[in-house]
């Protein structure tokens, strides 16, 4: 029933599709660089953060890694809607594999693609005078995997209710933007007003970006990590588990 071969081939398919869609590839690569070098450089001039021991452009790198994973994970789940609209989902549903297998295939492919993109982005770190050794890189891959899993699982859950590509874009943009702006990517969440802070505290990306800061911006001060890393990992892991369960449930229920 549960087939590793099927999970493998579903993942392989998503990777092939990803690398074949050149437009998507270019946008994916350009988006974080635009944020980092255009928005980042601009604000670096405007905001003086030298006193904290971190330049602004350095400060936003963990957030931009988070953003890359956010966009990649959420929009990887469009494949569920896409497959339904173009019929391919039926080819999978009628195969002798369980629904859970299909959910895991989609989860793993979305997660792996995100980790791949996040890891590729880390190449720019040395240009920002941030040191990343092997230990840091491995730690980042592990954390990125967790964050990507959490967000892909959430995206998959939402996408399983959506039946059109237009609907997907509307709903997902509505989810993605607040998640990004409430993640601590561009400014510390601690400085937000109390009633907005509540939303940041239930945002998995907020803990994800915080965990990245632990690795990429070690040290103390107002601009570095705000929560203990154990809390970050615990929250993201729990969030992943919850939404993996929920999406499996939804897929199992509907034929």
């Amino acid at each position, binding site marked *: 029933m549960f087939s590793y071969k*099927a999970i493998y081939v579903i993942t392989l398919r998503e990777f*092939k599709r990803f690398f074949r*869609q050149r437009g998507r590839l270019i946008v994916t690569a350009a988006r974080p660089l635009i944020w980092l070098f255009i928005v980042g450089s601009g604000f670096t001039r405007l905001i003086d953060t030298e006193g904290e021991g971190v330049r602004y452009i350095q400060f936003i790198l963990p957030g931009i890694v988070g953003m890359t994973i956010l966009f990649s994970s959420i929009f990887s789940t469009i494949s569920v809607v896409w497959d339904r609209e173009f019929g391919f989902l*039926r080819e999978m*549903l009628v*195969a*002798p594999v369980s629904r859970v297998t299909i959910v895991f295939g989609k989860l793993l492919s979305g997660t792996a693609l995100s980790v791949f993109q996040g890891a590729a982005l880390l190449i720019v770190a040395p240009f920002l005078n941030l040191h990343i050794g092997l230990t840091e890189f491995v730690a980042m891959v592990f954390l990125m995997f967790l964050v990507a899993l959490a967000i892909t699982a959430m995206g998959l859950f939402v996408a399983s209710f959506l039946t059109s590509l237009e609907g997907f874009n509307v709903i997902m943009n509505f989810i993605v933007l607040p998640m990004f702006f409430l993640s601590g990517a561009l400014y510390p969440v601690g400085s937000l007003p109390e009633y907005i802070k509540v939303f940041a505290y239930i945002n998995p990306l907020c803990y994800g970006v915080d965990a990245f800061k632990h690795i990429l911006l070690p040290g103390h001060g107002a601009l570095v990590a705000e929560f203990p890393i154990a809390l970050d990992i615990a929250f993201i892991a729990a969030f992943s588990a919850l939404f993996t369960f929920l999406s499996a449930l939804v897929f199992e229920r509907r034929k």
Partner: protein
Amino acid sequence: MPIIHVENLIKKYNGTEAVKGVSFEVNEGEVFGFLGPNGAGKTTTINILCTLLGFDSGTATVNGFDCKKDPHRVRQSIGLVFQEMTLDNELTAYENLKFHCYMYNMEKRLSEERIAEILEVVGLTDRKKDIVKKFSGGMKRRLEIARGLLHRPKVLFLDEPTLGLDPQTRSHVWDFIHSLMKREGNTVFMTTHYMDEAEACDRIAIIDRGRIIACDRPDALKKALRGDTIYLKTADNDKAAVEIESKFGLSPKRIEGGLSLLVESGEKFIPRLFEKLETGISSINLKRPSLEDVFINLTGREMRNEGPAPRMRP
């Protein structure tokens, strides 16, 4: 033992019955057709048999496995070609087939063998590395049928496999399916609303409004009509109908723009009709029994609104 067994199958959508107690059996090796107009319940039945849809009551088994209790084993026994395209356009022909092999847990060497073999059969060997997006409609269909056969299913389900194809491609696809069936020897369950496709089946079930109204060999169904059909257009169809009823003791059926009559011998009847009918005849057409007539005779309606079903010649 029949390979498909369906008894008293009922499926409701929001309270209304789409399939109203359907029963039939399909024997191993048979090409069995479901013939009926759009919305008759064909696709619903096929989806139930393929475990993609639940049902409200009755039983359905495929290859001896219960569609409700044992969907996994049913899925292992069947191959499917859907009405709509279900290929991944971004992948190559080979990759689409390979994906299928993995989903059906086939051995690596076996799947390579089968892919090479089936690509040869469908005549796509030299296109195997091409992205499916570039394929024509007929090529895509051939590839889908090939894919449905890769894992050597006991039963191949074809849901309107030629929908949306031009007539030439349609007949190509059918030639292909029939020659393939001879080779592979599996059971085929297909739905169609084209008469000529139904004629080529071993047995057909005519389904209308969720009910099977006839189920037999095509020639037996036609024989059961016992006679020819005369299609008639007159100056006043209502008046002509009354006249025919009283003068010949026949009960004409009303069809769009005219009347249809079932008579034992058409050649002999037409001269008598011209002689005795006072209402002016504007056109008349004699037809040997076809499945279309079987359908009209059973339901009083034409199967399709589009297309020239009973042709009227001036």
